[in-house]
């Protein structure tokens, strides 16, 4: 296993992926606009993809790339459905604030 490529240690790539994931997670938790939340989630997906691809490269095993492909597909499906939900919610409520949609309250 290569511990670095193009002069950059594998650890740096992983750290980058972690930072991106953390930024996305913070956005998903802190923002109240559903669209921004969704974009934050896309950021998290991409961070995960980056990690997959780094390890695929490290082990020269394209299973990681295949999985990243799968993640992209899931992300696309997720985006489509989530946006559909946003549209539906917006149809019934005048404002798009996730904190106002609380029908799941137990």
């Amino acid at each position, binding site marked *: 296993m290569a511990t670095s490529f193009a002069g950059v240690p594998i650890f740096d790539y992983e750290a980058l992926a972690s930072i991106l994931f953390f930024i996305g997670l913070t956005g*998903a938790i802190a923002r109240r606009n559903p669209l921004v939340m969704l974009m934050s989630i896309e950021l998290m997906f991409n961070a995960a993809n980056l990690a997959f691809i780094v390890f695929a490269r490290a082990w020269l095993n394209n299973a990681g790339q295949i999985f990243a492909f799968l993640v992209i597909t899931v992300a696309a499906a997720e985006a489509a459905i989530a946006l559909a939900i946003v549209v539906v919610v917006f149809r019934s409520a005048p404002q798009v604030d996730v904190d106002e949609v609380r029908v799941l309250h137990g």
Partner: protein
Amino acid sequence: MANPEHVMGVVGSYPLLVTLWLLPLFGAILCWAFGPQLKRAAGWAATLIAFLAFGLTIASWGAGTQSLNGALGADQPLVSWMAGFHLGLLLDPLSLLWACIITGVGALIHLYSIGYMEGDSAFARFFAYMNFFLFAMLTLVLSDNFVGLLIGWGLVGLASYFLIGFWFYKPSAVAAARKAFVINVAGDVGIMFAIFLIVQKTGSISFGNAFAAADTYGPTLLLAICISLFIGAAAKSAQVPLHTWLPDAMEGPTPVSALIHAATMVTAGVYLIARCAPLWSHDGNAQLLVGTIGGVTALVGAILGMVQWDIKRILAYSTMSQIGYMIMGVGVGAYEAGVAHFFTHAFFKAQLFLGSGLIIHALANEQDVRRMGGLRKRLPFAFIAMLVGVLAICGIPGLSGSFSKDAVIQGALDRGHPWLYAVGILTAGMTAYYMFRMLFVTFFGKYRGDVDPSELGIRHPEFAGTETHLADDGHEQHHAPAWLMNVPVAILIVPSIFAGWLLYGGANSPWHRFFDPQFGVGHFVGVPISEMTTTLVTLACVAVGILVAYLRYGTKVAREKSVERLRRESIGMSPILANAFYFDVALDALFVKTSEALGRLVSRILDPHVVDGAVREATIVTQWSGALVRSFQTGLVRAYAVFLAVGIACFAAFYAFHGVH
């Protein structure tokens, strides 16, 4: 584990046997399904089927008595479920004898019933039940395995339940039916337990395998099997202390009493023990136990028979006593004698019941002998029938009962049970007493049906308000032709007198030649009392019994003062005897009361505190945990995102500390 070579009979295809078995079931379904259309023809159809079944039994005679390489009789495989569990039909001399009685006597009683049940609103249903009983009983005796036997055992109990409670608008009949069913089911459980033990040991349910392994069980297991089987036999055959249902079962129609509760079903216990002779022959303790209980039953039945006033209850206790003889015979190992007593008893007891049915029918359902009397001239045919039956049951030489009863008594002595021998002789004398007592009270003296019941000491007349009348003019009440009821009784008189002669000739008699292949030649302990001595002693005892009965009820003076005597006897009866030795009370205290106490205990302590308590605790835990989990369900999507993040963090932390592998 199963040894297919251990079959009882010659394996083959016997269409006659299968037809014989299924024909009554067909009849039952026919009468049940098309009863409203068939009307009276239902009775004739059922009777025809019973006679056909008898014909088929006779036609199967050759198959049932054949012998090949040690296999005796005919074995027809039916269903193979899995290794060791093969159901089939077996016709060997033992089951052939039973099948003959079931279908032969059964057919005659069917014919009789057409007359007896005339005008009953559920005429077709009665015959459906009767044919169903034939099917059940044939299943019992024709099975070549324990499971088939148990199925038949349960089905005859069911048929008995149906027929005892046939007049379901009588509360006493319903109670009697339920009692009979419950006690019989208790017996079924005993047999089931025995089957479990046998299957556990041999891995097979067939008679052949169970008996072939008889000497491998070991004494404890063998005794356990024998006792379990005998619990079933005792319940079905009304042995002490499980006999209390039989007198109550007389609530059913009289033909039912004749067929089921005298001739066939109640002798199933005798069949079971004779069938399992290889097991009993290996276990002296079981023989002693069964023989003793048979002897005690014979004695108890006779004692209680002496104080009954209901004609059918007299006969019921007599039946119980006679089955006690049979059980004693097969119990001590005198299988041929015990089975012979079943054979002759089936005839004369059926005849006695049918004869009593003639009286009951003529007196519009009066059953109390105190309200009869002087019927000899009014019902001469019934008198002759009853007289022959009484003479036969008493063991008057030359009639059937004497041969078989003496054989049983002698058999008990030969196998080394002098006490049972003494009990047998004593019981014979008591039998003679109560039978002649019934005869004198019923047929001699003057008619007491018009006497006020209280003058006769009848405290609770069973048919209060019903005018008891003599059927002088039977034409007025649309009775069936008399021959319908008289012919079967007349036919039964012949075997009642002559059937015993099959036993004549000692070891060379036709009976022994028929059964020796089945039971082998018995071994004797050899007490030096000859058969002739036994017969003479028994006869002396019987003569004493008859004499006492004559002195008490038969003399001219006694006949004149019969009303006063009967009242005195009724009122002065010992409470022990009036309550039939408190068997009902004892059983009630032992089982019913304890069950009720247990039920109360459970319902007051176990149920509210343990069962309900557990449920309550469960609901509390559920509510509490539900409240806890509910607090997470804020409805805020971002809160869910936080929980998700925490979960991911936990997973990640686990892998960070544990490593990715």
